[in-house]
């Protein structure tokens, strides 16, 4: 009793060291450097261990958050890792790219007082701590159930399904279209936000658990879902993002106008930033405009900066409406990305050789809220101007990948080409086929894809274990 009275609320979130902006804007190394043991333990001790923790309920994969935090506070990191991995097979990834501020940390009881626990940083700390301990601990896996599961797509959704089902004793094979596992974690999110070594480590862990990995295998092309069904008892489709959206304005097919998918894939999957050591070329541009206001737009703008360009975000609403994480917006601002807010591109203007040389833009003001609840941008007449640019990256989203819906008869598909799947179970209109992630929802976040994978895995396990 006396002890609880003595324990005052500590509202000081321990900060995490980062590379200095003026340094990091010139390199592709990770920006955030992670907690030291000391600051992790200090941060963990701030947690008041609510009897009814609200953080857990707001985590798409239902991690026992107070549990792993207590373990850190007790300096029993091994126990912490074990608790974390019960629910999350990709903690080093989630600790870095989850939008904790609108999930677990948002519902932290200390949030009201402005001192919410840095749950994401602690998660990352544990995962990174485990990685430097050498050999990863492989949990005991129940005897094989002799049920075979095919997972299509090696991104966050598919990796989660594989991780969950292998630990329940099923035989799991992941089919990945690209030459590396990880999906958006590999081709989309840049090295400076999520080092590829970390993704590789998490994938290696799954392999050690017994998951069979098939890269360079395009289901729908190399082999159809139909044909997989002859061999597998259940299939999960997590084929992810598809064709990029453009705005249908003049000049979008000029040279130097990229989709975010292309721009990031060149840099991340193909390691274009190491050209010519890696052979996929990347242009060096001087003035890059990135259109959009989400995390992907921030990734593109910050990449352009690192390649030596003057880099700007062009976004039609204001900073408040930006869908990107605040942390990423702040990182971009610190590094020197220019923000042209309330600005709408009207057309791209080419030179005689078909290269973009300028863009016409128009200023906007905010009107009444629209369907999304955000205030609708309204053009200001007469505000059109032309600004010089030598590259444009269009980061306004993408449709779900078309290959599986196109080649799988009877699979119900929504208006935007997305696979229709039950939100709670991931079941599709076809027997034995589940789906989740971007191919169902359209472009969303890593953790939402993982959450969908978790739910689908539960439903698949139920199906596979029923007589």
């Amino acid at each position, binding site marked *: 009793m006396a002890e609880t009275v003595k324990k005052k609320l500590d509202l000081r979130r321990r900060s995490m060291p980062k590379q200095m902006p003026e340094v990091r804007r010139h390199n592709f190394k990770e920006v955030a450097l992670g907690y030291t043991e000391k600051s992790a333990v200090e941060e963990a001790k701030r947690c008041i261990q609510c009897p009814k923790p609200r953080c857990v309920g707001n985590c798409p994969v239902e991690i026992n958050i107070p549990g792993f935090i207590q373990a850190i506070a007790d300096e029993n990191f091994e126990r912490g890792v074990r608790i974390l991995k019960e629910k999350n097979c990709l903690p080093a990834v989630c600790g870095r790219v989850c939008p904790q501020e609108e999930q677990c940390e948002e519902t932290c009881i200390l949030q009201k007082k402005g001192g919410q626990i840095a749950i994401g940083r602690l998660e990352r700390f544990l995962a990174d701590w485990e990685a430097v301990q050498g050999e990863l601990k492989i949990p005991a896996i129940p005897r094989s159930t002799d049920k075979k599961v095919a997972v299509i797509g090696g991104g966050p959704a598919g990796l989660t399904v594989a991780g969950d089902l292998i630990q329940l004793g099923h035989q799991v094979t992941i089919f990945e279209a690209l*030459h590396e596992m990880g999906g958006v974690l590999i081709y989309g999110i840049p090295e400076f936000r999520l080092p590829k070594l970390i993704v590789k480590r998490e994938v290696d862990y799954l392999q050690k658990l017994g998951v069979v990995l098939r890269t360079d295998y395009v289901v729908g*092309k190399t082999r159809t879902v139909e044909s997989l069904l002859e061999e597998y008892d259940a299939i999960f489709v997590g084929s*992810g993002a*598809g064709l990029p959206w453009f705005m249908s304005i003049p000049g979008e*097919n000029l040279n130097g106008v990229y*989709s975010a998918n292309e721009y990031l894939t060149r840099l991340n999957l193909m390691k274009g930033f190491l050209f010519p050591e890696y*052979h996929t070329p990347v242009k060096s541009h001087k003035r890059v405009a990135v259109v959009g206001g989400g995390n992907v737009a921030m990734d593109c703008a910050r990449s352009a900066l690192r390649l030596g360009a003057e880099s700007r975000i062009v976004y039609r609403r204001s900073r408040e409406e930006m869908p990107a994480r605040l942390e990423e917006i702040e990182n971009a601002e610190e590094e020197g990305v220019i923000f042209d807010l309330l600005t709408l591109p009207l057309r791209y203007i080419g030179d005689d050789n078909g290269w973009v040389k300028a863009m016409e833009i128009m200023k906007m003001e905010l009107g009444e809220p629209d369907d999304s609840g955000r205030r609708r941008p309204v053009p200001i007449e007469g505000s059109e101007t032309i600004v010089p640019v030598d590259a444009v990256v269009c980061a306004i989203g993408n449709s779900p990948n078309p*290959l599986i819906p196109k080649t799988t008869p009877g699979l119900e598909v929504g208006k935007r080409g997305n696979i229709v799947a039950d939100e709670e179970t991931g079941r599709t209109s076809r027997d034995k086929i589940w789906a989740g992630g971007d191919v169902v929802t359209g472009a969303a976040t890593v953790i939402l894809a993982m959450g969908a994978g978790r739910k689908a895995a539960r439903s698949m396990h139920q199906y596979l274990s029923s007589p």
Partner: protein
Amino acid sequence: MFKVIASKMIVPNIHLLTLEAPEIARRVQPGQFVILRASEEGERTPLSVSDWDADLGTVTVILLNIGHTTDQLASLEAGMNIPTVVGPLGNATEIEKFGTVFCLGGCYGIGSIYPIAKALKEKGNKIVTIIEARSSYLFYWEDRFKALSDKLFLITRDGSKGLRGHIERLPQIVKEFGKPIDRVIANGCTFFMKRVSDMTRPLDLSTWVSLNPIMIDGTGMCGVCRVSVGKSTKFACVDGPDFDGHQVNWDELLQRRKTYMAEEAVPMRTSRCEEHSLKLRKN
């Protein structure tokens, strides 16, 4: 890893590469392509499949050695392994009984038009093949075309074999042929296919081309392969690669293909003709 079964320069600067890829060999159809990566650092290069053997589990591509990556592919030798062979990608060429089909090939397209012509022949079409090269020594697979074509025309720039000139001789051939032509299919470099389309437009001949824009993933994700066809933007990797040649915005495609021309030269230190000639001699 995928094993190289055969690799040889079949005519100067044009290479044949046969790879072990049983699952692709089982499913590939005429007009589809594969993406290769020659090394862990390598680019992803889309190449039309020119031949395959489902029983042996092999696929064959024909490529022009023109840049760093194609040079790397050309330098492979039988027995070596490469990290990526993925496919079959894209949609198959439409194979129906059309009647009389003109199959046109230039450069590496001589290779990729072959399985198309063969499948069309098997479907009961009359096949007129026209292949074009700078000079007689640059023709390959002539015997294969001879065997399946109802009529075979060769065109060389220098007149060393067949007609003299280039594919601009097409209208004349059409005129002399004299009978109705139901479809023209052209495979080759972008410029070749553009010229064919330009010439068949006034003749009102249905013309299909296999486009070869820059690609990365080839599975409908990155969007770099977009081409303007008619009034819409299409993605060659999932909507194509075959399109109506009269609808394609050729100038835009030619432009877009030049995007990385400057960069492509960077890793090319010197010409490696001698090395390839040595290999040719060894074979």
